[in-house]
């Protein structure tokens, strides 16, 4: 197997990328980590005309905290998201979710910008971005704009990037007083999850003041489970409530049927994951 013919440019500056995108538009396919794109090219499911490689572009691989947000450069590798002390210190749920992506040999290449832009419905990071109500920064010769996850991730393998734009970073608001966690169920570790949940709770005096719950792997994009969050508000997360929340989640979510799992099974997984994650979050708070 080998990819079909294309033209290739190893861009060495952001301007060079943006100029090519501006000039060639839709003809350009951007190469980040390549762990989804190259398999698609090997199988000839993707036939790019021009491949612009981002791996030598400086300035796209930083991790820092700015204005209450964790800003991660689009070309930061999943392996580094999983182990970087700033990420593990400020957003451990994100680090944990990144460690679920494929295998170490894949995570050494996978990038956060590529992963989120690819918008695979089973992918972990778009779900975490949704749970944090995060955003991406898009740059073009026309300027720069911030787009919330909800507008950016449209559907399966579809995002709202314009043809002349580049995702330069991904931002996760740090939410003081909140605890987040990610967990999933996959046939084998490293496989795409049948279902995954990213949950965040804000608890004071033992009472739930805020909750965000997002499911991945069940629909064409991350699904925010607002019913569960509503139900939890004002309650104490005791064993009976957590059990009930799992049930609410199971009933709220409408899940895909496919060769890997039935809709009914995925719903049960969502309920089980809610129970497991919230139980652990409560234990951590004690």
């Amino acid at each position, binding site marked *: 197997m080998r990819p079909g013919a294309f*033209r290739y440019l190893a861009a060495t500056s952001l301007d060079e990328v943006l100029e090519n995108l501006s000039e060639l538009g839709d003809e350009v396919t951007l190469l980040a980590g390549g762990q989804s794109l190259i398999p698609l090219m*090997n199988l000839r499911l993707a036939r790019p005309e021009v491949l612009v*490689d981002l791996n030598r572009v400086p300035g796209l691989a930083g991790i820092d905290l700015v204005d209450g947000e964790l800003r991660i450069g689009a070309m930061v590798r999943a392996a580094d998201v999983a182990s970087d002390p700033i990420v593990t210190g400020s957003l451990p749920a994100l680090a944990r979710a990144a460690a679920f992506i494929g*295998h170490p*040999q894949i995570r050494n290449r996978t990038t956060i910008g590529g992963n989120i832009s690819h918008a695979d419905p089973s992918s972990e990071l778009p779900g975490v971005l949704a749970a944090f109500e995060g955003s991406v920064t898009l740059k073009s010769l026309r300027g720069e704009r911030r787009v919330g996850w909800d507008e950016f991730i449209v559907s399966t393998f579809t995002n709202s990037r314009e043809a002349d734009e580049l995702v330069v970073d991904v931002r996760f608001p740090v939410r003081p007083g909140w605890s987040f966690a990610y967990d999933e169920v996959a046939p*084998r570790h490293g496989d795409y999850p049948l279902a995954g949940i990213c949950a965040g709770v804000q608890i004071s005096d033992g009472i739930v003041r805020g909750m965000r719950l997002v499911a991945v792997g069940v629909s064409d994009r991350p699904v925010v489970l607002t019913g569960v969050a509503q139900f939890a508000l004002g309650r104490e997360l005791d064993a009976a409530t957590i059990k009930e929340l799992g049930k609410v989640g199971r009933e709220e979510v409408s899940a895909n049927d496919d060769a890997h799992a039935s809709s009914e099974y995925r719903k049960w997984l969502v309920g089980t994951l809610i129970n497991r994650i919230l139980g652990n979050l409560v234990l951590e708070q004690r």
Partner: protein
Amino acid sequence: MNTPQTVKTIQLLVNGAQIEREVEVRTLLSTFLRDDLGLTGTHVACEHGVCGSCTILVDGRAVRSCLLLAVQTDGTSVETVEGLGSLGDLSPLQEAMWREHGLQCGFCTPGILMSIEGEARSGSSAEEICDEVLSGHVCRCTGYQNIRTAIHAYFATRHGS
């Protein structure tokens, strides 16, 4: 502004030797190593990143050579199984795999060796390598148990030296 090309000349280190070659940009790194450089120790099976057979090191990190283009390695240091050791002069890891029967047919072995080598250098523990790193490889002969034993044996020699 540089323009996109279909052929490019690349310079890289392969197992420590400086190489310069003209490559078609669509050539996969695995194809380049095997067909252009004759380094057939890097095996190719699934060619979409699942099986782990083609794993090599690029700048010390274990990656799938079927998911990289050869042009992407311009200016890097690439290490393949040929750089580890040779018949009669096995590396400590190869020696451990041989002693512990960590292979049978041997098809998956070069990829597994390179993954273990890369992760061991980056400071991973034997246990992490057994569980995490080995999950990135498909072996149909051994059932993995002897590979795990070999990893522990290899780490024992590393700490002993």
